[in-house]
């Protein structure tokens, strides 16, 4: 079990935002976390990464390949982030530093964890950009984020995330802000990326069609709790919880 989450809770003062969430993601497994906005999906991911906003405190346990993440010292967490666990965020527009060239931002992730010269890291970065099927990767590495399209930026984010072959990849609504045509390409890249590396994937979304395409197992979250879980086909065709049924009814998904 690559990621083992046990009774994870996030509180804002006394107000609970995530309540006793427990689940696991195995090696190479692709697990989806669905629910509407406000259900606590993103907070769960942030808690695992150790990047909760100020004022929010996590309790419980989240073990990555056996080592505890919750409550671990920042020094240790920094070492693991980008190397053992990585995240792709929703907004490609703002996720990249507008003043730094794209290639350098990818290279930074490589140099942080593998060391080496700047030149070697940049070369590796260009290779990574090529792997995410970006056109003319050498030229693109010298570009600034505002010169790229949303889809291209998200691919760069993916390259950064997979740069050091992490054991766990968390994606938080990675394609929601993209055009439909571009979405499919990015999703394919995510799939091939994690398959190559046998990376465990935790995929957060509210879009049921995407979940159906990407994930083998699904967790349904509502009001900070996991209300249903099972294989994708089971949950989406034979939902047992009321909320899941409502979600399905509201979506355009037809029974497979």
């Amino acid at each position, binding site marked *: 079990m690559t990621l083992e989450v046990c009774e994870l809770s996030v509180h804002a003062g006394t107000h609970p935002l995530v309540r006793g969430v427990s689940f696991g993601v195995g090696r190479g497994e692709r697990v989806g976390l669905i629910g509407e906005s406000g259900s606590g999906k993103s907070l769960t991911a942030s808690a695992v*990464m150790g*990047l909760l906003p*100020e004022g929010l405190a996590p309790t419980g346990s989240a073990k990555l390949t056996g080592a505890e993440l919750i409550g671990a010292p*920042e*020094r240790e967490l*920094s*070492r*693991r*982030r*980008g*190397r053992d666990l*990585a*995240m792709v*965020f929703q*907004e490609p527009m*703002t*996720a*990249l*530093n*507008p*003043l*730094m060239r794209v290639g350098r931002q990818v290279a*930074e*992730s490589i140099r*942080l*964890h593998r060391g080496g010269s700047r030149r070697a890291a940049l070369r590796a970065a260009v290779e990574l950009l090529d792997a995410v099927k970006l056109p003319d990767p050498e030229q693109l590495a010298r570009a*600034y984020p*505002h*010169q790229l399209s949303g889809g291209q930026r998200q691919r760069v*984010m993916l390259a*950064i995330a997979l740069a050091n072959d992490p054991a766990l990849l968390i994606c938080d609504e990675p394609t929601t802000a993209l055009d439909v045509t571009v979405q499919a390409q990015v999703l394919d890249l995510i799939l091939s990326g994690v398959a190559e590396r046998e990376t465990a994937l935790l995929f957060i979304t509210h879009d049921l069609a995407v979940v159906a395409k990407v994930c083998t197992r699904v967790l349904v979250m509502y009001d900070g709790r996991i209300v249903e879980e099972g294989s994708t086909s089971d949950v989406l065709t034979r939902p047992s919880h009321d909320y899941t049924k409502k979600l399905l009814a509201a979506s355009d998904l037809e029974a497979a």
Partner: protein
Amino acid sequence: MVVAIVRRVAILVISVLVASIVVFAFMAVLPGDPAQVALGVNATPELLAKTRQDFGLDRPLVEQYLSWMGGVLHGDFGRSYVTGEAIGPQLLDRLGVTLWLVGAGMLVALVLAVPFGALAAVWHRRSGGTAISGLSQLGVAVPAFLAGILLVQVFAVQLRWLPSGGWTPPNQDTGEFLRGLILPALSLGLVQGAVLTRYVRSAVLDTLGQDYLRTARSKGLRPYPALMRHGLRNAAVPVVTVLGLQLATLLIGAVVVERVFVLPGLGSMLLDSVSARDLLSVQGIVLVLVVAVLVVNFVVDLLYAVIDPRLRAAR
């Protein structure tokens, strides 16, 4: 990009020309007769008329303006009506002094504002951050000349560590030059530093909330390195904008500080010329000061484009 630069240069040139016309027109409106001022009360009408002719004051205004500006563009600011000496060389000397003062003041301000402002932002929920904010509010409320007076009192009069005024050119005695520069630079810089601290704080605060910092953290960067590598340059953008405006304030603040420390700068030259009704000198000095501000703003505009690549593409 070239188009944008050319456009900015054109605007600068036009602004300088318009400013020169405004300054000239202002002085021309002045009641009183420079010839009278120069010669005194007992001058005969014939002498007055001849003097006016010597000064070129009987020519049409437009011609006077063109002749003056023509000279200025060659570095010739004319001769003072009162002292008869060439204005240009003295202006240059004095400008040098003022520039040293302003430069040193800005240095002090930055050295204070950047670390403290950044700290205040990072600690914005802790008491340390509030303390820095409070101090900077206090610093803003103190006029530069008051700071100067108090500094002189403490360091020059009581402790006798530093001179209370006067100026030594840098090439004459570097040690004395530096010693004489410390207190004036501090007076200017402490107050400006307080103002800048607040701007740095808000710029860094803005940056702290940005997504790309979260990305940097998720790569494995610790909080401070993430801020240094990704946040600083982004935070610099709004700060650089303010820097330009602040330079103008600093220039004028220098005028007052020069009085407190008896520095032979442009500011004191201006005040002396006004008291002596030396209009041509006043004209020249005001022009130089205004052009200095315009040039600084121009440079800041360019700097802006250098720092932020997004501004290089369009316009």
